[in-house]
């Protein structure tokens, strides 16, 4: 998908989510409907996606070629990519310990077992994703 298409798609999706949030806010404000809880989440996600999409479109339609070029260079710069990947790897390492400590705390707090099971499943999913990509890249490289 090219940047222009992606920009339009994200902007439209963002606006759609914002309007859905408004619809939920207006219609379910006075009722006990659980969909009302989604309002603020949708508004947050919608605004984020819309902002990202609009950013892409501004770059595409920008008449300032130098700005366009420098943004592209900054985006594809190998050192920036290496730094981003390294930071993500460090954050992943930290997350593994933080997540496991959190699950232990949750288990000792005697909270609803369903919540603990969901957290453990998410933790295992992340671990398996790591293993999956290790195998994939091992074959590719």
């Amino acid at each position, binding site marked *: 998908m090219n940047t222009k298409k992606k920009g339009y798609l994200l902007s439209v999706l963002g606006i759609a989510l914002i309007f859905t949030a408004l619809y939920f806010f207006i219609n379910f404000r006075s009722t006990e409907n659980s969909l009302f809880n989604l309002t603020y989440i949708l508004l947050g996600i919608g605004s984020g996606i819309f902002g990202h999409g609009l950013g892409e479109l501004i770059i595409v339609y920008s008449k300032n070629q130098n700005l366009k070029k420098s943004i592209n*260079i*900054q985006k*594809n*710069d*190998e*050192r*920036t990519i*290496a730094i981003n990947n390294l930071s993500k790897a460090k954050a992943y390492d930290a997350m593994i310990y933080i997540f496991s400590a959190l699950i232990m705390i949750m288990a000792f707090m005697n909270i609803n077992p369903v919540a603990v099971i969901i957290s453990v499943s998410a933790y295992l999913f992340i671990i398996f994703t790591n293993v999956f990509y290790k195998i994939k890249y091992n074959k590719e490289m």
Partner: protein
Amino acid sequence: MKNRLEELRKEKGVNQEKLAEILEVSRQTISSIENGRYNPSILLAFKIAKYFGKKIEDIFIYEEESNEY
């Protein structure tokens, strides 16, 4: 790994900004390579070598690390 990038760049009379633009990387990347804080990918090393009309080993000097256990 040491390199002669700064020396060659100054010889050629280009600044970091211009070299970065030619090689399609950021100015910080050039600065980091010159300071020895960042080792470029083989692709970028080839680009640099091609730009200066030299071999990679003429620009980047490999130093064997002494492994002391």
